[in-house]
């Protein structure tokens, strides 16, 4: 494992360089789009630790994003004892609160296996949007909560979009480093052991409960940070900002990207964003095929395109893009996780 260190560090540095330099070459709005991709990426990082590493499927991480987003909203708007909190400082708090929620979910999750866990977490994704409607005095209901527009701090001379870009990808790189460090060490080995064989892991003294719960907490923390950033970027939250389908999209991004590949996760995050917001571009590509002329404005066509793309991609690449990349480029790729 030691010999893989230099390629991975080099890959990380290359990524950091690209992130830093990119805004100079792209439009302002594109920077905002990449910022949102970054938020999905952060959420997917967390989800990959949970699913790719500890082998627990969660169809509910959108709810953890919502917890993070609402934490930021409540702290910024309602404040604490009337004192509104600056949006930046709410990000770690949102992550921690979401993380605690994740730990709380992780405990009963221990008793559930595979499909049952997937469906229960899906139930969480379905149920969570109802809470702001029930407790609407505090959480705003469907009217939602309106935050102050995000602005670069300390009077930095940059646009809001660039600021969100750097903020998001800065945090993403830090969290990427944290995830890398986690899975390289004892935690990662324990989680991998659990994923490969729970019986063997437990027999060799690995505390299943601790690590599995911890994985839930970590993935929820990441999702909470992502949700917080998303709330700041939109300056608005309501249940429809974190809909049920968001949890599904996260799993889509994970599956299509490839559960344990860095390149795959970035690709997955990009795909989630792209398919939602650039359906007309995809329709344009499809219309090059003979006998097809799709109008992306016709109700129903965007859904059909999204669904068809998902099916085709999964049929062609069952292990996701990450699997494809690994097959093509072998050990040269900067990989987040080493497979022993």
């Amino acid at each position, binding site marked *: 494992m030691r010999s893989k260190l230099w390629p991975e560090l080099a890959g990380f540095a290359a990524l950091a360089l690209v992130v830093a330099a990119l805004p100079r070459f792209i439009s302002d709005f594109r920077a905002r789009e990449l910022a949102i991709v970054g938020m999905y990426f952060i959420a997917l990082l967390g989800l990959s630790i949970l699913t790719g590493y500890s082998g627990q499927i969660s169809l509910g991480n959108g709810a953890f994003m919502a917890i993070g987003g609402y934490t930021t909203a409540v702290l910024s708007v309602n404040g604490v004892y009337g004192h509104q909190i600056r949006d930046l400082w709410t990000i770690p708090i949102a992550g921690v609160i979401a993380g605690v929620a994740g730990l709380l979910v992780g405990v009963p999750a221990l008793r*559930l296996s595979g499909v049952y866990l997937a469906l229960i977490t899906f*139930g969480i994704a379905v*149920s969570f949007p*109802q809470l702001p*409607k029930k407790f609407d005095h505090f959480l705003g209901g469907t009217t939602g909560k309106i935050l102050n527009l995000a602005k670069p701090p300390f009077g930095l001379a940059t646009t809001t979009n660039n600021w969100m870009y750097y903020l998001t990808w800065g945090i993403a790189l830090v969290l990427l480093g944290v995830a890398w460090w986690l899975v390289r060490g004892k935690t990662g080995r324990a989680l991998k052991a659990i994923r490969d064989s729970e019986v063997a892991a437990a027999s060799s003294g690995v505390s299943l409960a601790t690590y599995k719960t911890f994985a839930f907490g970590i993935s929820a923390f990441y999702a909470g940070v992502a949700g917080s950033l998303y709330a700041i970027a939109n300056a608005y939250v309501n249940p429809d900002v974190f809909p049920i389908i968001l949890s599904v999209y996260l799993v889509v991004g994970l*599956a299509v990207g490839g559960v344990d590949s860095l390149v795959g996760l970035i690709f997955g995050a990009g795909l989630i964003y792209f398919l939602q917001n650039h359906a007309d571009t995809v329709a344009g590509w499809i219309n090059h095929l003979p006998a097809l002329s799709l109008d992306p404005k016709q109700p*129903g066509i965007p859904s*059909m395109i999204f*669904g068809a793309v998902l099916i085709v991609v999964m049929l062609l690449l*069952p292990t996701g893009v990450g699997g494809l990349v690994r097959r093509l480029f072998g050990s040269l790729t900067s990989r987040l996780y080493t497979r022993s």
Partner: protein
Amino acid sequence: MVLAAFTWTEFAQQLAAGIREGAIYAGLALAIVIIYRSTRVINFAQGEMATFTTFIAWSLMNHGLSFWTAFPIVLAIAFAGGVAIERVVIRPVEGAPVVTVVIVTLGLALLLNGLMSVIWGGANRQFHGPFSTRTIDVAGVPISVQDIGIVAVSVGLVGLLALFFRFTKLGLALRAAAVNPESSRLVGIRVGWMLALGWGIAAVLGAVAGMMIAPVVFLDPNMMQTILLYAFAAAVLGGLDSPIGAVVGGILLGVTITLLGRYVGFIGSTLKLPAALMLILVLLLVRPGGLFGRVAVRRV
């Protein structure tokens, strides 16, 4: 919200509505369980498949056919569709990770939903069911004939399926293929086609559920979305590998949630789904396989 006072008449009516809701959940939950038992796949497209076949029924009836003439045609189309989906879309990803198959069924759901909007449009439409909308007096309580009919058809269908699985060779082969594919192949069962058959049967169950509920809730592409969520809940409640569980779970869930939503002000309409989740979570903690299911317990 101003809650109306309690009357026994109203309670009986709410109970009847709950049983009827539960019958619909039971039908869909059974479809989910059949597919899960045979292919280990959670079919997220189950609701959209049901709505799609209901739209086909609507089209046939729009062209002049009566409900009972269209009914067997739609079931045949549903069966063929289910088999085709299994062979074309599910089979290629049979060995793939669970996540992959989940995504495929989700993609299928999106595709079908969009297709319905494109073909038939998103507006609500009336669906003329086979049952009259009269009410009859049951021990002093006005109950709708339609509700009784829905429950009767659902129960009847479940009964037929039970007989099929128990007493026919094909049913036995299906069960064998689900439980032990390897040994089944050894005795000459075409396991691949058994899986497709399971999907076909599930599609038929969905079609019936759709045609039963459409007269009540009106037909539109999104008709089954909330119902599917409750059907998943019912399937988990009953145990994902237990057909009996699906039926019992469905009815139980329908009644409990309707009554809770009506008589517990805090839950009301807003927290019905979360309440269902809580109930099932608590149950699963006590019985990890649901009411009737079995989950292997490893003691380490």
